[in-house]
């Protein structure tokens, strides 16, 4: 039986509605560019994108939105929230997920025909996180909370006080499931972005995810896991927007 067509989960027990926090930086007038919806993992909030990337994308003509995942939601609820927000936008949206948010986006692509999708440092590995920060991650190996430290999230180029200020704002949950690429509806182009020096998403994992979507990852050496906050944050977002501009102008 196909889950694609027979959606008993949704038919028998729909995900309960919640107030969702969506932060946006909009563009004046009706531009040509599709809206971008940024999705973070449960560790962060919409603020992590609002800090740098949202404004930057809006400046380049892309109306940009970021969603804070609901508290205590499971993967299904988070996917539901992403699809709900995407469908509420005026036009077909581009989904951009970071970390565990990329896992959510990968699932959401099976439910919503995104214009395009970007997976940034997708699906942190518990084992890699453990090797670089045993004390903080140990509980996660037993399905408890985990905690990532400054060295894992940011490169040394980011001033320590800034990094600590970001860390202060993070909440920590147990990590979500592994990334499992589902068949994306509407065949959107998918880009995988990461850093070869990301301590929690090892390079081979990045390559594997990119291969699953038929491409190679776009790499930003020297950066930590949080590409949207780390020093040099402009480079990856500019590369993502360049890729989008190219993909969107190509005939479908």
């Amino acid at each position: 039986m196909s889950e694609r067509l027979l959606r008993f989960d949704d038919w028998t027990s729909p995900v309960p509605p919640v107030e969702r926090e969506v932060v946006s930086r909009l563009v004046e007038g009706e531009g040509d560019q599709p809206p971008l919806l940024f999705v973070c993992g449960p560790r962060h909030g919409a603020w992590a994108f609002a800090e740098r990337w949202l404004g930057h994308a809006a400046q380049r003509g892309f109306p940009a939105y970021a969603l804070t995942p609901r508290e205590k939601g499971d993967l299904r609820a988070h996917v539901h929230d992403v699809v709900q927000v995407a469908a509420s936008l005026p036009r077909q949206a581009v989904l951009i997920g970071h970390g565990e948010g990329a896992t959510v986006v990968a699932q959401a692509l099976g439910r919503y025909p995104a214009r395009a999708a970007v997976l940034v440092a997708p699906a942190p590995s518990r084992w890699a996180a453990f090797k670089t920060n045993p004390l903080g991650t140990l509980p996660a190996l037993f399905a408890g909370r985990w905690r990532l430290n400054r060295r894992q999230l940011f490169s040394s180029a980011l001033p320590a006080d800034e990094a600590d200020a970001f860390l202060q704002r993070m909440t920590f949950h147990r990590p979500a499931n592994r990334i499992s690429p589902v068949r994306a509806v509407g065949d959107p182009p998918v880009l995988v972005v990461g850093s070869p020096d990301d301590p929690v998403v090892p390079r081979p994992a990045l390559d594997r995810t990119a291969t699953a979507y038929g491409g190679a990852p776009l790499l930003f050496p020297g950066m930590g896991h949080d590409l949207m906050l780390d020093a040099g944050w402009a480079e990856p977002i500019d590369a993502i927007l360049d890729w989008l501009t190219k993909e969107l102008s190509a005939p479908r």
Partner: protein
Amino acid sequence: MHDTPDIADRRDAVCVIGAGASGLAAIKNLREHGFAVDCYERETSVGGAWNWRHDRSPVYSATHLISSRPLTEFPDFPMPDSWPDYPHHTQLLSYLERYAKHFGLTEAIWFGTEVVSCVPVGDGRWDVTTQSTGGGSSRVQRYAAVVVANGHNWAPAQPEIPGDFVGEVIHSAQYKDAAQLRNRKVLVIGGGNTGCDLAVEAAQQAGMVWHSTRRGYWYAPKYLFGRPADQVNARLLRWRLPLRLRQWLYRRSLAMTTGDLTRYGLPAPDHRPYESHPIVNSQLPYYLGHGRIKPVPDVTRYADGKVELADGRRIDPDLVITATGYRPLFEFLAPELLDSDPDGRPDLHLHAFARKHPTLAMVGLLQPDAGLLPLAHWQSVAVARWLRLRRDDPVRAAAVQQKESARPVRGWSRRQVVPTRRHWFEVDHIDYLKAVDGLLREMEPAK
């Protein structure tokens, strides 16, 4: 046929007829599969039957959905989860308008344009003649395929009642607002969902209400155990309970909630549960119990300005509303193209694919036991996949066609229904989705 210079060749483009819910899904999914689309809509806006501004829309001011939101929304574009379980018709219209805007569909739609005829010209291509609604010069364009989504709830089916009646007789399509009922003596004819909804409307507004039904039905409540009833039913289907057991559970839960309706004078159902289109109405039994609705049998004729019933009684309403449904109508297609029977009912594979014309398809010609939109979505995905396969891999397409085209309706639908005019395109949505899924799998791109 020769190419004449006044026929504009649209090459690989597909013609979609109608921009209601089904037509919009067809445009979106065809374009998603790489086809250029020209959609013709005789009205000046999207939404079809759900757009109350349209002359032929059957909705009235109090129309709400009778299937709940999760079983009614497009599977890839959910309705807002903050909406009620059973949204109002204006919400459904705004949903369709947002769908059209979200996916940029209106740029493919020619509004105020009617399709006059579709004629096959060999090699699977079609000459489509269009005209401005209400006249004007016509135009012929050639398309690679035609997808018909003209709806089946706009051409009223009028019952033949002999004799003369002094009061007013309207079809349910002409009922728009409760003011039409206020302080009148109203007879509602028809036991379908519309008939029952209108009987309830009348019970709240009119001075006197008779409700004429030909047979007994199972009147399911809209809520069961605190959940929308169709969501409870979906649970039984998920557990794959056998039909007989579901029928027994249905009888039990109805006996415990609605109770025995024969004591109000309604006939007992002459069929088992799930054997007719589901009637969902919580309020009808309530008003029967309050004596606001008087159930009466079939109407035989008008006599002496009054209405004569099958049991010989005469009643004297001053407004008769015939909620007797609609006829599917395809004036722009020769009946043999759809293998239609003398009553105008097409015989199509999965109620969607013309058996002898591989580039002619129908979307939304279904009467499911759930919302129509999800089914119309998957139908149009299947149509788009089929047309793409036929264009890109004719050899495999021929194999699929040979296997599929001869399959009779009984090959996938186990549905036993009472044999009436309205039930010929009745489908069980689970069986139907499984059948479409099977077809989609056969058309999977080769690895």
